């Protein structure tokens, strides 16, 4: 028989209490793993999302939101426009490999999101769009029949959401305009999945923005010339140049404030779990005062008693950590679902990524938590004097 056996058997004494305490630790660990997994996952998918925009530089009118996240946060408003002449000028630059003009416009559709209403993002694009994003494939249908057709190609998710197939007619109530669905893109895992694409000229016409653009996506021949290229554009009036590296930074900043909140939640959950463990073990120590006394009488040293109680605490935390990780792994999709419902903008792809390193780290964290939580109860138990303990309650 080992000390561990004694500790383990004691945990089986009050099964419900042990179960609840383990549950508390498990929930704390699950919260921790999910949040940290979200951290990793969100950054990764966001990076992926932005890399897959296909351009390294975006030129927009000054003050114009430059990606879907900001646009959605601003409620679809705040768009600024620049003249198409800017595009013609920049396009002559020899350092450019590909360039694609675009005109973003938003429409509020009161029927979206089960009647809550939502914003639909229309993007006017030219034929060069596909050159910039060679991975875009059609799930069905094809590219616009002409540069000025009243046609629309729908991103994968938008099509799913609206239940659209090629050949459908889409009515834009505010404009009193009907567009024909000619194609649906495959899933790209980027924000493009949620966008309705229309020919640039059509967009300029129906939204009454002749000769206007909101952005120009640019891919350079040599990424090394990015700095020089950006500098050369600073002289152009009324535009701003955004490199995608900057965009990432902006979004991460946006997310980091909410990260502070969620991390605090995780820390509080862990604190509560630790207090719960200490409380449970302490209670069980006091209930067993006589037993501890008798163990001392028959030869247990202070260290033996300390060991038993410390092991009990650690066992609870080890089991809690183990089950917490299982809960976190099983709960990934639920957490993803909730985040997608809550966040105004969530990148495509896996939002919660649980890596082996994360699992190992949080497991070790739980063990350390057990070791720390166990110190005080173990100390109390080991300090009991045998006679007083045995005769207690008489």
């Amino acid at each position: 028989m080992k000390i561990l056996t004694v500790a383990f058997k004691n945990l089986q004494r009050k099964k419900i209490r042990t179960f609840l305490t383990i549950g508390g630790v498990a929930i704390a660990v699950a919260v921790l793993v999910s949040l940290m997994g979200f951290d990793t996952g969100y950054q990764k998918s966001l990076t992926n999302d932005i890399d897959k925009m296909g351009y390294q530089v975006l030129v927009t009118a000054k003050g114009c939101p430059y990606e879907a996240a900001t646009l959605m946060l601003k409620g679809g408003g705040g768009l600024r426009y620049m003249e198409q002449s800017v595009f013609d000028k920049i396009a002559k630059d020899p350092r450019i490999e590909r360039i694609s003009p675009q005109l973003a416009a938003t429409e509020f559709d009161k029927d979206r999101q089960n009647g809550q209403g939502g914003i639909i993002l229309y993007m006017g694009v030219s034929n060069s769009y596909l050159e910039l994003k060679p991975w875009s494939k059609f799930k069905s249908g094809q590219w616009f029949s002409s540069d000025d057709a009243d046609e629309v190609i729908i991103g994968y998710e938008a099509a799913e959401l609206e239940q659209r197939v090629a050949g459908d007619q889409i009515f834009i109530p505010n404009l009193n305009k009907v567009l024909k669905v000619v194609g649906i893109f495959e899933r790209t895992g980027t924000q493009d999945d949620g966008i309705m694409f229309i020919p640039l000229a059509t967009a300029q016409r129906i939204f009454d923005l002749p000769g206007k653009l909101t952005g120009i996506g640019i891919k350079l021949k040599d990424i090394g010339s990015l700095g020089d290229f950006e500098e050369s554009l600073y002289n152009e009036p009324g535009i701003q140049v955004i490199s995608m590296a900057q965009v990432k930074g902006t979004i991460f900043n946006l997310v980091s404030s909410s990260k502070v909140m969620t991390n605090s939640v995780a820390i509080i959950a862990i604190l509560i779990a630790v207090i719960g463990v200490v409380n449970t073990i302490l209670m069980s120590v006091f209930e067993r005062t006589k037993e501890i006394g008798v163990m001392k009488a028959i030869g247990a040293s202070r260290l033996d008693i300390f060991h038993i109680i410390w092991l009990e605490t650690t066992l609870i935390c080890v089991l809690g950590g183990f089950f917490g990780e299982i809960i976190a792994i099983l709960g990934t999709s639920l957490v993803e679902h909730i985040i997608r419902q809550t966040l105004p903008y969530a990148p495509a792809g896996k939002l919660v990524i649980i890596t082996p390193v994360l699992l190992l780290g949080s497991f070790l964290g739980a063990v350390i938590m057990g070791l720390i939580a166990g110190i005080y109860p173990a100390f109390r138990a080991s300090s009991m004097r045998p006679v007083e303990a045995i005769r207690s309650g008489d």
Partner: protein
Amino acid sequence: MVNILIKADRISKIYTLFAEEIKAIKDLDLEIRQGEFIAIMGPSGSGKTTLLDILGCLDKVSTGKLNVLDHDVSAFKESSLVKIRRVNMGFVFQEFLLIPTLTALENVVLPLLFSGLPQEHSKAVSLLERVGLGHRINHLPRELSGGERQRVAIARALVTTPKILFADEPTGNLDTKSGQQIFDIFKELNQKDDLTIVLTTHNYKLGLQARRIMFLKDGCIVSREESSLFV
């Protein structure tokens, strides 16, 4: 020359309760020799249990000199007392005090775990057999009767082959028949194994069966006599 195991020289035990000093044991002299079977008797509050705790190195004396197995334990701390206890002394308590989550066998093996002695299961089993529980070694304490539990406690007390067995009111929670059975085990251990036994009881019928009887009153020994009933 008979070996003296314990020698107490004017020992006292003083408690402080609500700033008032209570002398549970008063300047008591005592010798316990190898092979003795002593019953400490007396009314409640006479200091029986306190005396037993002190002789068993579970508690410390306040004044006086106590020599246990050639150690002057008067000034010993708990960390030193436990070393003397774990290999030399066995304890049996009125409330049995078995660990409820461990089986009879595991309870008996437990002192070996703490003492760092080899955990010979055969020894534990043969002790359980000796107290008549060979068929219940894997039962939990709650599945045993009071008398059976006390027998497990006796086996537990014997597993380290102690020199002295201390029993505090060992029959106090048992009916007359079980009480006598437990007492018979003590008598047999004393006679056959020459085990020194010190117990407290306020059951005269049983107490008088010990070899030596000590009457305690207000922390003092008021009479010491050899029993005529000891067979």
